């Protein structure tokens, strides 16, 4: 059975769902950030697979993936900074205790 576009899409879907479960279920804010990175990587796999199998000569999907990586790097830097700032103020990064912005 030769590997095709569907296999890469299913791998991407599995990784995305695992990341989504982690984002929703975990309490440690750094682990939530890690799960967001898993989701972004899953999206990148889907983009590169579409680029490889649908438009193999245009490489548009790979260019999109590069921009996703740029935004992911910026998001990780700002996210870690926010988590460390919250930890300084509240001595905790348990997201169940972060209800200070809830109406």
């Amino acid at each position, binding site marked *: *059975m030769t*590997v095709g576009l569907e296999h890469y899409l299913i791998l991407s879907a599995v990784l995305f769902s695992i990341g989504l479960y982690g984002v929703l279920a975990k309490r440690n804010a750094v682990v939530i950030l890690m799960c967001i990175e898993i989701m972004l990587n899953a999206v990148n796999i889907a983009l590169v697979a579409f680029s490889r199998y649908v438009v193999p000569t245009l490489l548009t999907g790979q260019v999109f993936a590069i*921009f996703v990586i740029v935004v992911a790097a910026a998001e990780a830097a700002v996210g*870690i900074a926010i988590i460390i700032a919250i930890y300084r103020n509240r001595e905790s990064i348990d997201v169940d205790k972060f209800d200070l912005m809830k109406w």
Partner: protein
Amino acid sequence: MFDIVFWILAAVAVAAALAVVLLRGVFRAALCLVFLFFTIAGVYVTLHADFLAVVQVLVYVGAISILIIVGIMLTREVWRGNPSGKLRIPALVVGLLLLGTLVFAAVNTKWRISDTPPQEPTTAAIGASLFGEGGFILPVEIAAVLLLAAVLGAIVLIREK
């Protein structure tokens, strides 16, 4: 040959992602995440995306994993472990529902697969489409501004008062 490599990489990637979510120790979860980034670079190689594989190793394995590990060390929550919150069961249901929908859509759609062989060295072609005539030069400039803003924002957020 790429088929066997893909199956091995896919199994290892899913196992590493599950380990990130399920392992008790936060630091071990972070190390599994680094391993997951490596396997995804391998997946890019099986997709003939050589430049992206190198970028993945440089940016994710080299930079983002270091950021995350520094974040774990600076917050000293390691001893509390990697617990799940109150939303564990709903999160599982939502994840499985999304997985089912995505797999159903991916399998049942007739994709228009192209027969042309993929470009082998992609670096020059990606550079041409990023910076060349009629390419993505405006998004590149915006990405530069975004990175500058992110660096300045991180410094402002993390500065001691």
